[in-house]
């Protein structure tokens, strides 16, 4: 089964870190990604630009409404994700606990809705 690990954390914390700590942080994520890959668990992952770059779109009565900023304006924001392949939720939670993001933020673990008839890559 595939699980999406959504990494929520306080955006401002990153810019307040020293350069050395930032490097260390990036290296920890690289090591985590590497460990996921070697275990054959990794499907995909990305870090997102901060919510200052976010734009929301929706259609209201047929007209598109475009707004500047994130959908939910809160202190902790989605900063990135990992998509992993794990046999069950327990295994996915085990991997989530190892993510550096679990130490400085919160990780939401959600199973991917399995589509019948479509082949997963």
């Amino acid at each position, binding site marked *: 089964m595939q699980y999406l690990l959504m990494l929520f954390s306080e955006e401002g914390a990153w810019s307040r870190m020293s350069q050395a700590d930032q490097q260390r942080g990036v*290296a*920890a994520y690289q*090591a985590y990604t*590497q*460990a996921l890959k070697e275990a054959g668990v990794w499907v995909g992952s990305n870090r997102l630009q901060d919510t200052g770059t976010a734009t929301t779109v929706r259609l209201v009565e047929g007209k598109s409404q475009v707004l500047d900023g994130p959908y939910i304006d809160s202190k902790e924001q989605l900063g990135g994700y990992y998509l992993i392949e794990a046999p069950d939720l327990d295994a996915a*939670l085990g991997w989530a*606990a*190892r993510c*550096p993001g679990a*130490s400085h933020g919160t990780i939401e673990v959600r199973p991917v809705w399995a589509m019948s008839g479509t082949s997963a890559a």
Partner: protein
Amino acid sequence: MGNVRDLRSVSDAAAARAAASTVARRSYGKLLAYLAADMHDVSAAEDALSEAFAAALADWPANGCPDQPEAWLMTVARRKGIDGTRRHRTGDAVAAQLRAIADMQAECMHADGEDDAFPDRRLALLFACTHPAIDASVRAPLMLQTVLGLDAKTIASAFLVSPEAMGKRLGRAKQKIREAGIPFVIPEREAWSGRLDGVLDAVYATYAEGWSDPDEADLVRRDLADEAIFLARLLVELLPQEPEAMGLLAGMLYAQARRSARRNAQGDYVPLAKQDISLWDAAAIDEAEALLQRASAFKHIGRYQLEAALQSAHIERRRSGRTDWTPEVQLYGALLALTGSPVVALNRALAVAELEGLQVALAILEDLSVDKRLTDYQPYWAALADLLARAGQKTRAHHAYEIAIGLTRDAAVRRFLQDRQAGLDP
């Protein structure tokens, strides 16, 4: 902000609360064990006990505490049990009431919580919870819920499982106990070896989960280590002729003694060899040594006594100022022969590295690398990285550190490994 007196009254209140919880927890396990054995049904016993607690919360404040609160609760619970009104509560309902009743009950009970109104059947309950017919992964959680009254959410968090899944598993296990007719009895001596291992393993698994939060950040996990020690003490008390129970408690006390030395003042990880001995808890170590001594008098060695003996060897430098690796290698060898565990094999290899050299140890790790159980095991990669680094194989060491860093759950260990990895560069 707070002055000294405020702090003291806060800590007094906390101490009173802890004492109350201990008393309540003791009697909770005793009451539930007795009821479950009586009704052959853990869920029904939880239901009945929950009803009795609700009655106590309503009755005691108005009419005063009864002389024998446990007997009072038992009488009411049995009557409710016979009523047969099933509300199909989970253990959580009782766990919540347990907290509410803790303070009240402590006032009416003697400080040691002894109340001999009915026999202690907690050991039989422990055997039922760890019966081989019950899935191994749920034995420790079930034990924590029934004997200690922890709620499913707390247990789930400690075992890194979703609360919903943990609730379901606990429910299934209780159903199995009822429907398969798992007995609430202490097995005959002949059948003991396997069955007692089940009990000891579940207590040990509880401790291991508690120990794995060296940050001390996670209250649930830290408490779990204390709960495990509580259970091990209970086992030693209930099984005074069982050296393995003593070995289990001794091993956990040794580990607990070194607990706060695992971090320095900055919160950085400190490996065993670099720990400040003065931070080790001498009283806990003395108690562990005495237990191990007592166990050895039975001349019946087992896994947990070996584990404890190893813990004792780990802290040898407290006495002699140095570590003697010969007994470490021998003890790990004996433990490996007994358990066949790849984790024991890994630890033995690290002791071998000190005694016979890096190449011998690296060869052992090479053999172990085919074991799938070690593929995601962070300490394997950290150990491999360390040995490779010491052997001057920097490229391979760098890679092994990378995997170890990626597998760790602990931020301080992550920092420690990152520093080691960075230290590889000239």
